[in-house]
């Protein structure tokens, strides 16, 4: 099905099932521990052996020599695979650093060997006996030091390296009020609960992996490419995923090593990447240095806005596209952005929840707050007065929907923003200095082809199959709701099967594109199935109504199941998009409001309350969507106050590489979170009239926290995370 024109009325608009806060249909499996995660698939292959990954002990250099004798002789060892005996390996389309290192070492904890043994403990003990002599090289690990050598990256996923409209320099110089400030964001880790985990089994030259991966087709394709085998010989199965946040978008070391280990051992092999390796072996959100310059009239009208960003990566790695949102968020005739990439030898940087946009909004939305302060204008008012309903670089291009102003004004009213004292450091509640902060939330909606197969059987059960994944987001549930709405059956008549490369290729889960596109793909397949059923039952498909388990037209009504009396009816289709995403700018908007308390003595920062108001198209399931947004808000608090992969610039690694040292918020850090969805449908986006929502929730949160800390204390911190040591010297007396 091609989606070329704005959606008109369709069966989804009935909203009998869609739009309801349905609890997750796989929830009972998860709460009872019976949803099998990759490492727990004990039943899928007999005789599973265990793999333990050896990570590089240096950040840059090469392996001088490797001695496997002691490890091979250790009890239970079945095989050891290194680059020396792995055979020729290719590299996945979406990998920068090789997943199996050696002799060259690209980064710390890059996998250099897998030890396979009969038990986990045997594999772990033998791994300690692998003797490697490294020759250390000169690595570059300091972004600030490499910043000025930054290279201009090729246009990538996030846009061109340079953009310019009008005459930014003159407009800025001529502006009566100006801001020029530099912000930094640190490297951050996904820190998901389930580590990368896989079981691999070979049957002749065919490979099956049970894994934890957000993008099944990418994973299968890159596995085939890396192993140099036909794609048809690779099957990836990933029905349940214990958190990904972008860290599981790609083929990663544990699944490749499980496949290599299984081939070498002649047995199925399971591997869970050890927790201490999670932060340096896998990908992370790269650190940024960002400079923002804004010029405006005294009334706050922005005339010039510029945003530059520097980040680093390994060879073949991409920059963090932190400037993207500045191209679209606020009006202003003269504007520029620039993205530069430094060559670093730290682990590979890649997507983490709202890549680019989350980091960029962390800086931009502090800058707007600083600018409001400078202008003496309320930051909500300043944002509203610089709203734009068109793409500022291409004014002929409208936003499909843009309710930023409503998000800000509704949020301000609900939060009690009028009670905020604009004078910093002026509000006290016992030992706490109290402050309020606001930031815009803004994340683009991305459209991508997505396919599904739908089957009706003679019991009237509708089964959906697609390689779409559910990474804790609610995909199972919204896909079931879509099929139920389309076929006119209750939810318990729908079965959903996900995460298998034998199923039609979906959009996968990432970039907040999963919900809208995968359900639109199911919509397309269901539309086709409706036609097949109508034809089978002798209805005119345009007139047939599917409701309450029957198909009705005029006075005639036939139970749905009857259509499959002679055998299952199957339809497969994909949603494919025309030019609407080019004609219109499709984005999601919101406003984050945060109140913090800062201990007047210790400068400890604790969030007191949070509110998000979001406008993100039709909300397919308000309960699942709310869970996504409050989870993202929590992650935003982590980004604001504690998350920091600390670089040891001498040894070239993230040194705090476990969950005790890399702090993320705990329950006690998160107060009551309120979140509101504005009523919105976006017929430009898809037949579902929905858009992404999950990553909108993180964009802007950290800046709202930072702005609240400033309001509480008068101390402006421009280097994340905002920790008490950065406040102490400036605390009010």
């Amino acid at each position, binding site marked *: 099905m091609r989606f070329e024109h704005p959606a008109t009325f369709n069966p989804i608009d009935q909203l009998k099932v869609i739009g309801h806060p349905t609890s997750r249909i796989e929830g009972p499996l998860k709460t009872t521990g019976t949803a099998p995660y990759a490492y727990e698939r004990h039943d899928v292959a007999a005789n599973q052996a265990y793999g333990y990954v050896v990570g590089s002990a240096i950040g840059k250099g090469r392996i001088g020599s490797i001695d496997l004798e002691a490890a091979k002789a250790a*009890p239970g060892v079945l095989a050891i695979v290194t680059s020396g005996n792995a055979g020729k390996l290719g590299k996945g389309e979406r990998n920068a650093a090789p997943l199996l290192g050696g002799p060259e070492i690209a980064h710390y904890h890059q996998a250099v060997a897998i030890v396979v043994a009969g038990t986990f403990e045997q594999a*772990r003990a033998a791994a300690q006996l692998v003797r490697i002599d490294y020759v250390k090289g000169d690595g570059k690990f300091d972004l600030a030091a490499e910043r000025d050598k930054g290279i201009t990256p090729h246009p990538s996923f996030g846009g061109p390296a340079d953009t310019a409209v009008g005459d930014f320099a003159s407009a800025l110089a001529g502006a009566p009020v100006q801001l020029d400030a530099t912000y930094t964001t640190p490297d951050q880790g996904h820190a998901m609960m389930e580590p990368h985990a896989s079981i691999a089994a070979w049957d002749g030259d065919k490979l099956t992996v049970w894994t934890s991966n957000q993008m099944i087709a990418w994973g299968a394709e890159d596995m085939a490419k890396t192993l140099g085998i036909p794609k048809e010989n690779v099957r990836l199965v990933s029905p349940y995923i214990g958190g990904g946040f972008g860290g599981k978008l790609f083929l990663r070391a544990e699944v490749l090593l499980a496949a290599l280990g299984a081939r070498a051992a002649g047995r199925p092999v399971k591997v869970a990447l050890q927790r201490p390796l999670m932060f340096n072996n896998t990908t992370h959100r790269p650190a940024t240095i960002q400079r923002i310059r804004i010029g405006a009239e005294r009334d706050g009208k922005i005339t010039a806005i510029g945003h530059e960003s520097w980040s680093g990566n390994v060879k073949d790695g991409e920059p963090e596209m932190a400037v993207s949102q500045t191209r679209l968020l606020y009006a202003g005739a003269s504007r520029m952005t620039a993205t530069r990439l430094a060559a670093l030898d730290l682990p590979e940087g890649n997507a983490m929840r709202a890549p680019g946009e989350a980091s960029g909004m962390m800086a931009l939305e502090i800058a707007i707050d600083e600018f409001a302060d400078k202008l003496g204008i309320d930051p909500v008012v300043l944002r509203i007065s610089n709203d734009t309903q068109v793409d500022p670089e291409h004014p002929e291009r409208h936003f499909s929907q843009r309710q930023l102003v409503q998000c800000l004004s509704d949020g301000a009213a609900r939060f009690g923003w009028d009670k905020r004292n604009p004078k910093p450091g002026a509000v006290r509640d016992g030992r706490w200095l109290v402050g309020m902060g606001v930031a815009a939330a803004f994340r683009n909606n991305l459209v991508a082809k997505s396919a599904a197969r739908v089957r009706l059987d003679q019991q009237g059960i509708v089964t959906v199959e697609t390689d779409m994944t559910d990474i804790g987001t609610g995909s199972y549930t919204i896909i079931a709701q879509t099929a139920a709405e389309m076929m006119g059956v209750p939810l318990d008549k729908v079965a959903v099967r996900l995460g298998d490369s034998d199923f039609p290729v979906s959009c996968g889960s990432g970039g907040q594109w999963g919900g809208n596109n995968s359900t639109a793909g199911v919509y397309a397949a269901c539309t086709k199935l409706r036609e097949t059923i109508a034809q089978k039952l002798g209805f005119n498909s345009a007139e047939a109504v599917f409701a309450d388990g029957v198909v009705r037209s005029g006075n005639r009504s036939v139970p749905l199941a009857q259509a499959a009396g002679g055998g299952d009816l199957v339809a497969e289709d994909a949603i494919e998009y025309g030019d609407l995403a080019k004609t219109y700018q499709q984005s999601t908007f919101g406003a984050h409001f945060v109140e913090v308390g800062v201990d007047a*003595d210790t*400068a400890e920062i604790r969030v007191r309350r949070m509110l998000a108001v979001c406008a993100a198209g039709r909300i397919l399931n308000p309960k699942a969507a709310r869970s996504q947004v409050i989870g993202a808000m929590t992650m935003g608090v982590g980004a604001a*106050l504690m998350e920091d992969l600390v670089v040891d610039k*001498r040894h070239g690694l993230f040194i705090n590489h*476990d969950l005790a040292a890399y702090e993320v918020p705990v329950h006690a850090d998160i107060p009551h979170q309120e979140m509101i969805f504005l009523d919105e449908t976006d017929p430009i986006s898809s037949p579902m009239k929905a858009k992404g929502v999950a990553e909108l929730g993180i964009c802007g949160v950290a800046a709202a926290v930072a702005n609240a800390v400033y309001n509480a204390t008068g101390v402006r911190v421009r280097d994340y995370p905002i920790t008490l*040591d950065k406040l*102490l010297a400036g605390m009010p007396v």
Partner: protein
Amino acid sequence: MRSFSYERAASPGAAAAAAAGTANAKFIAGGTNLLDLMKLEIETPAHLIDVNDLALDRIEETADGGLRIGALVRNTDLAADIRVRRDYGVLSRALLAGASGQLRNKATTAGNLLQRTRCPYFYDTNLPCNKRKPGSGCAAIGGFSRQHAVVGVSDACIATHPSDMAVAMRALDAVVETVRPDGTTRSIPIAELHRLPGDSPEIETSLEPGELITAVVLPKPVGGAQAYRKVRDRASYAFALVSVAAIVQRDGTGRVALGGVAHKPWRVEAAEAKLPDGAKAVTARLFADAKPTKDNAYKLPLAERTLAAVLREARA
């Protein structure tokens, strides 16, 4: 697998004798620290002596009105004990500020005292650490040292002791009771239990090889306002950047011990004489020989401010 032998000790004396008589032996009680370190092969004992069967899990009153806390009393039980809550508030508060509910249910009194540092360089076996591998150097010096010690440090080690409980016990002048391999017992003032790193940071306590802690004795209650204030980046499950255990009497005298600043709970009795002069005077004495790094110099003003807040609240 990397094998180790295991036994369940029948008596404290037998446990100590077994520990002294077996190469590379370790006691195991709650295991919340030891097992983690074994998985990472930072601790590689050849023999484990499980002391959980020893009847050391009681809290009893001593003849002079104090409390004897068995070595195996779990942190949760100790924090909840009505006598501890009533008479030793600083200890109950310190315990509840530590770890998580799950860990406190498992962790024991003696194990808490003997837990090892959380320095990230101690935890990465690829990097130098004099505590883990004597003579290899200290990677924390010149590295990431925001959490590290500011006082009592050496060129060999700047690690901190992670315990909250021990800081309160230091303020309470607790005494550690032990049994030695030869069956004799002794009492060690808690001030003398933990060592400064010096040039042998791998030796962390004054315990002799095989010596087993059997109890911690608290002297009779000293009254006063008792506070434990732990400062950290997140609200729970984080080690102290700085913590203050304080007992303040009506007349303005009192005791102060700090956590998160040294290789052991940091108390300088001479500094307490300055209490009537306020926090600045006390911390000036506590930190007279401080040698902070660029990353952790903030701990000095932070400790002063935290102590000031504790004193203000105690006197309110």
